[in-house]
């Protein structure tokens, strides 16, 4: 969020907005890609921007060659190539998540191979494998290799993979929506719409700097830091995280609307959820949709086709554990986070079984049952979220 209190960020955002207003025959993705690289260069320095572009160029080159090679090939070749690429990405992601660039590993590596400049290489790899860039890269491989969608040029691709207004905490934008910018670019917002967007952006800032920071200061003091020693602390943490993350997402989405760059919605009243399954369609929505598109649906389809629809519920237990295990590991490479994800998956599979009975008993038709669900559901969901946050709190705030 520090980025959003940097006046340079807002000046650059305003400049990009004004520049994008000029109509030129160039494609919308290319125009945004160009301005995005310039924005990254001003915000992060030209060396970082050049490194980002080199990474995207390399990635683009690999994808381009692979597509040529796979033209007319058997689907098994697509699958092999796609998984090989994702494995490579996962390796870079792993390096990032081990935080090697912060430890004694750098000095050991420097002694063993000084020519590799690990002091530069490791932070560079860590930056490239920043979690959101990783998930966007996986989405790109899925779309370009398996779904055979068009591959953007490297400049436009940098605008999809490392958009400067989604630099801090996503959301996970959708490749097919980014492609749609070219054939049907959204019209530039008129003056009323600009005001609505400014309202959205300031609400985001209000969420973060007034409500979230207000909560932190109230409970932990001006210079205080979060400690989670009880379930109450965990509850405070959940509410703080909502206003912090939802606030950030609103700002990013508002800027995306001004630019005409698809920036998905990330939160939709999560504390009104009536089940944990419902909660994950309202909290960090773009990540939930990413997992659904790229992991849950393909895996569940294959499994249910194999085992038959009667065993779909059992198949879903495995799919849920894999999908949410991934979400857990995406937060941090640790057994605690994997277990957190796997247990979430199990709980949702259990909810599915319960829902099956509710449908069988016709409770979905009963207004009284619906009323009870609307009242008790959020209490149950909030309790689960508090307990789950308590479970991983030591990972977030080590003692």
């Amino acid at each position, binding site marked *: 969020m520090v980025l959003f209190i940097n006046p340079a960020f807002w000046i650059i955002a305003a400049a990009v907005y004004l520049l994008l207003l000029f109509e030129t025959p160039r494609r919308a993705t290319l125009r945004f890609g160009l301005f995005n690289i310039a924005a990254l260069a001003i915000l992060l320095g030209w060396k970082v921007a050049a490194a980002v572009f080199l990474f995207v160029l390399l990635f683009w080159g690999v994808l381009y060659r692979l597509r040529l090679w796979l033209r007319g090939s058997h689907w098994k070749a697509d699958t092999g190539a796609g998984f090989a690429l994702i494995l490579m990405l996962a390796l870079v992601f792993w390096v990032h998540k081990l935080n090697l660039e912060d430890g004694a590993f750098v000095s050991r590596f420097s002694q063993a191979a000084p020519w590799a400049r690990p002091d530069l290489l490791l932070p560079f790899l860590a930056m490239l494998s920043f979690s959101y860039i990783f998930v966007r890269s996986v989405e790109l491989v899925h779309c370009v290799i398996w*779904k055979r969608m068009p591959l953007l040029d490297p400049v436009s691709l940098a605008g999809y993979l490392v958009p400067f207004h989604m630099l801090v905490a996503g959301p996970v934008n959708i490749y097919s929506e980014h492609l749609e910018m070219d054939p049907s670019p959204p019209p530039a917002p008129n003056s009323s719409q600009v005001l609505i967007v400014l309202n959205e952006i300031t609400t985001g800032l209000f969420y973060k700097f007034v409500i979230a920071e207000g909560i932190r200061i109230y409970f932990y003091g001006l210079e205080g830091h979060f400690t989670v020693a009880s379930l109450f602390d965990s509850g405070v943490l959940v509410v703080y995280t909502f206003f912090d993350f939802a606030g950030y997402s609103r700002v990013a989405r508002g800027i995306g609307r001004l630019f005409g760059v698809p920036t998905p919605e990330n939160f939709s009243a999560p504390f009104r959820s009536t089940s944990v399954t419902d909660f994950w*369609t309202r909290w960090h929505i773009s990540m939930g949709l990413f997992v659904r598109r790229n992991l849950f649906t393909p895996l*569940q389809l294959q499994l249910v086709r194999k085992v038959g629809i009667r065993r779909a519920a059992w198949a879903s237990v495995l799919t849920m554990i894999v999908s949410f295990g991934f979400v857990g590991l995406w937060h941090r490479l640790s057994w605690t986070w994997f277990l957190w994800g796997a247990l979430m998956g199990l709980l949702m599979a259990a909810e599915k079984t319960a829902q099956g009975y509710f449908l069988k008993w016709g409770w979905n038709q009963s207004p009284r049952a619906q009323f009870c669900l609307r009242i008790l559901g959020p209490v149950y969901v909030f309790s689960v979220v508090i307990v789950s946050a308590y479970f991983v709190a030591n990972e977030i705030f080590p003692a």
Partner: protein
Amino acid sequence: MSENTLDPNQLEKLTGIFRVLFNAPQLELRDNLTAKDVAGWDSFNHVNLIISIEEEFGLRFSNDEVGSLQNVGHLKHLLASKLASS
């Protein structure tokens, strides 16, 4: 575009699948009906719905088709074009 429209018999079969799966005997398949409008139509039951349709009509959807379905009208259209080409 008659080849992309379901005949009454096919539409009845499709409606039957929805009604049984979501335990909604009165459900009518309007074109603008989406997952939000039907209790229990989530990503899990979406897969079950697709597999049920595949088994009933003897065809197969790709992952891409399953993921890109927007509403019932879209599903009807896709199903009709698949039936016409099979």
